[in-house]
């Protein structure tokens, strides 16, 4: 019971991680792949945030009478990682737009077929 409830967040991390990873690999639709990647990355963000949490701790802002603070570093790191994730998504979506323009489809197997014909 302890492992189930005490590590609740980590279970969620694992479920999200595997879901996202599976979508990114198994789906043929390029936008769905990007969504899968996003879920995959988000699970990692959640993992960092969870490990920074100190039970009973508040936001890490100096204040009289407060002794316990949450670890501030993971939050800061994840802010950066979120920016990286947004940039990756932006690049990926821009690519998808251009793929759609030049191939007329964004299904992976149709793209592969078009490439085989072209080659």
């Amino acid at each position, binding site marked *: 019971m302890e492992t189930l409830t005490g590590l609740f967040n980590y279970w969620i991390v694992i479920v999200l*991680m595997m879901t996202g*990873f599976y979508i*990114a690999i198994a789906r043929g639709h*390029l936008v769905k*792949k990007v969504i899968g*990647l996003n879920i*995959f*990355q988000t699970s*990692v963000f959640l*993992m*960092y945030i969870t*490990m920074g949490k100190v039970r009973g701790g508040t936001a890490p802002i100096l204040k009289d009478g407060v002794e316990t603070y949450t670890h501030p*570093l*993971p939050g800061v*790191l994840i802010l*950066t*990682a979120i920016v*990286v994730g947004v*940039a*990756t998504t932006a*690049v*990926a979506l821009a*690519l*998808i737009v*251009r*793929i759609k323009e*030049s*191939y007329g489809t964004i299904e992976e197997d149709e*793209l592969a077929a078009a*490439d085989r014909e*072209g080659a």
Partner: protein
Amino acid sequence: MSEHLPALQIVVPMIAAPICVLLRRRALVWPFALAAAWTSFGSSILLLRRVLQSGPWSYAMGGWAAPYGIEYRADAAGAFVVFFVAALGAIVLTYAPRSVDREIPRGKHHLFCAAYLLCMTGLQGIAITGDLFNVFVFLEISALSSYALISLGAERRALTATFQSLVMGTIGATFILIGVGLLFMMTGTLNMVDMAQRLQPEGQRTALVAFAFLSVGIATKMALFPLHLWLPNAYTYAPSVVTAFLAATSTKVSVYIGLRFIFHIFGESFAFERMPLDATLMPLALMGIVVASAVAIFQTNVKRLLAYSSIAQIGYMVLGISLATETGLTGGIVHLFNHAITKGGLFLAMGCIAYRIGSVRREDTRGLGRRMPVTMFLWVLGGLSLIGVPGTAGFVSKWYLVLGALQSGFWPVAVLLLLSSLLAVAYVWRVVETAYFREPPEGSKREEAPLSLLLPACALIAATVYFGFETSLTADVAKTAASQLLGGRP
């Protein structure tokens, strides 16, 4: 000024990139970008010299002392990687204006320069930083800018190739992020030196998981067989200049990250005794060498042939790591550099060919030995270095690798290494045969590539010959780096 060298090494190209976008005008952008790249090259020489003279150089970013602040730490291996990334970056960018003129629309040149400089920033940053999260951020800077660069390729297949490498690259980088997170969870620090002191990986399950995620993530990034699927298309359809730069630097920097994690952070006793990393990497490396070389023989597109050969060469570097002896590791590290100049030179020669005949298919290179004698001569020299003929840089690294394998008693590995050179002979020969022994198409005349393309290609190929004889710089630096790495965790 000089005490801020480690920071300037990164800051110069990083600031120059957005300025390129602002300048816009081609006449201004090219000289500016070139100045930034050569400044970076110059400072990397000073950095390497200082590190070799007086040992690792620690620099506190913004004056905040490690382990709380971000530390830039250049040791022999790091400074060596920074040096060759900057060198290749500067030389390839010198080559770029003419070739890019042909392959990328004029309105996008300032964006090309910006992405190129950002890619240089990221790759150098990975090598110089002493902070694990910084490694991830620089990795993504170099990766995102390289996606932009690859997608500039003229054919539409460049787009699908980019998307494929984006998906695999992001998965790889996220795996590395997970590994870094788990390490942070155990030690509460991100500074590499500090972490190495605090981390007691023995008997910790979290350490095992972190190690597994990092190994797979880094292997994806360096295109180790069988995680190489993103590489051949990306190298084939990217613009010539981009292929030359990325093939010469990006996968090598990932190998360097691997070295850092294995030897500095986890320590070799954990990586090789507790975790069977050597027993995992060695078969993968050997399979990569043999399979990729064999596949290369049957390619009809010469750029794709060279891309498969790159996968095989990554196998040699990883083999050096998996031997985990000083000689083997020296071979692996020296091959980082030797392969960078060889492959850089070969892809620049391909760029010359693409510039003149507009194609990189083997069929279209008929009679090129007579039509473009200098370019093809450079190509042949580069090919000899891929094979590892004595007198070229490729020989030096293979020598150390074979020696390392024999010293550790892996004589079948040594035999396989020699056999793999035969495969290299086969794929190099197929191009040579087409270029020298087939008749050129009717009506073609001798038309050598312009000098501004030939000179940088000459410089790199001349370097492969030079470093085939003069090994004191490369092999000695690699030896120092290898002994520092094997010296255990700092």
